[in-house]
């Protein structure tokens, strides 16, 4: 570890300000848990995990609908690996696969194109999940499918947007957040302006932060600096990857293919214009439309506190199930399933906490 990290650590350790800082990115959740940064912070500085893990915030109703769809004999369901073990009301995708459902795990949505062209007699459905970082990759894939005239491909979109959920968090009186560690790779696409607007509107300091321990410590120091001087603006710490204007090509693709829709978030409920579904030009690719799926009512997993954990109201280890009934081997809720879920990260690195 270089001296810069030690200097930052010493500086932060001696801060007397009382504050709660939130991150909203699964990669930050993992990086913070792994680095042991929580363990060196003084008690007066708290680090909260917000709704930054796309797998965790996906509603139970959508997970159930996707599992049901995967069991259709004509369907090949294509998904990122993170979704396989997420428990629905009745089993998971992994269990559906063990019972014969044709489910393929991919690293890139582009692989869906090959699967669709190799299986012209089957319906290939991609489970489109992720925030502003991932949604453009799915938009680009669908545009390519359209050029290739792959009519047997569709997407079940549970894509979500970060600024609307931040608005919901900041207006929730039950959640105390004094500053925000902004998601580094979402910002690669959005740029700094959406966060700058929120910083002013809600008077919350924000710093777009990278993912190594030195980045995170610097992000925390910048947030504390703003809090102490009474400022509320968006700053850019992760300069090596984020341009202030973001990636305009990616944003253009998003608007060409998708439109904002109201979306259901686990534990947070319906949030206006916080999700993405296909716009009128691409609605033939909407799996909900193609298979006439009526998404059922949201149900909660009995005893599971994922909703409270995702909104920063509860620390993972304050959930009565944590580490007893709910472990990474036998997860009850999605925050314990996804590697980057708050509960899984806390469980895995709990000795580093304090």
């Amino acid at each position: 570890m270089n001296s810069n990290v030690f200097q930052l650590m010493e500086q932060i350790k001696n801060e007397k300000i009382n504050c709660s800082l939130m991150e909203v990115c699964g990669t930050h959740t993992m990086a913070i848990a792994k680095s042991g940064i929580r363990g060196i912070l003084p008690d007066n500085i708290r680090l909260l995990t917000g709704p930054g893990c796309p797998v965790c915030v996906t509603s139970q109703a959508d997970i159930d609908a996707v599992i049901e769809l995967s069991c259709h004999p004509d369907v090949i369901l294509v998904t990122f690996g993170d979704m396989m073990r997420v428990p629905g009301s009745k089993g998971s995708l992994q269990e559906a696969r063990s019972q014969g459902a044709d489910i393929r795990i991919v690293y890139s949505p582009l692989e869906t194109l090959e699967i669709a062209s190799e299986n012209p007699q089957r319906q290939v459905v991609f489970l489109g999940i992720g925030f502003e970082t991932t949604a453009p990759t799915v938009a680009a894939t669908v545009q390519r499918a359209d050029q290739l005239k792959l009519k047997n491909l569709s997407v079940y979109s549970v894509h979500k947007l970060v600024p609307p959920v931040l608005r919901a968090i900041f207006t929730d009186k039950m959640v105390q957040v004094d500053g925000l560690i902004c998601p580094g790779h979402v910002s690669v696409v959005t740029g700094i302006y959406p966060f700058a607007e929120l910083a002013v509107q809600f008077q919350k300091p924000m710093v777009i932060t990278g993912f190594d321990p030195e980045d995170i410590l610097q992000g925390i120091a910048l947030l504390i600096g703003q809090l102490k001087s009474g400022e509320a603006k968006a700053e850019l710490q992760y300069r090596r990857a984020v341009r202030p204007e973001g990636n305009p090509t990616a944003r253009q693709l998003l608007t060409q293919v998708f439109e904002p829709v109201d979306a259901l978030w686990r534990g947070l409920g319906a949030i206006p214009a916080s999700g993405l579904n296909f716009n009128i030009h691409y609605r033939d690719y909407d799996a909900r439309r193609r298979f006439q799926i009526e998404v059922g009512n949201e149900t909660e997993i009995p005893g599971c506190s994922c909703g409270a954990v995702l909104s920063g109201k509860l620390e993972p280890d304050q959930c009565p199930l944590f580490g007893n009934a709910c472990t990474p081997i036998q997860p009850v809720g999605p925050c314990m399933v996804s590697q980057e879920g708050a509960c899984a990260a806390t469980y895995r690195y709990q000795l580093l906490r304090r």
Partner: protein
Amino acid sequence: MCLGVPGQIIEIQPDLGAVADIDGNQVTISVALLPEVEIGDYVLIHAGFAMEIIDLQLAIETKQLLQEFQELNK
């Protein structure tokens, strides 16, 4: 989920395809989100797509850090 890894563009292909060198592995990616990219550029790659051009020196530093993390986790 929003994990990004640095890689170097070593070939540009038709239809916005490219080959990137990620840690010695040659991986086919798309540059549909970054059409201005050129051979030799270091890019941040997410889900098979180049998302942003990154500074060469900073890419190497990120790579070294990722390797250090892997060493630590062994």
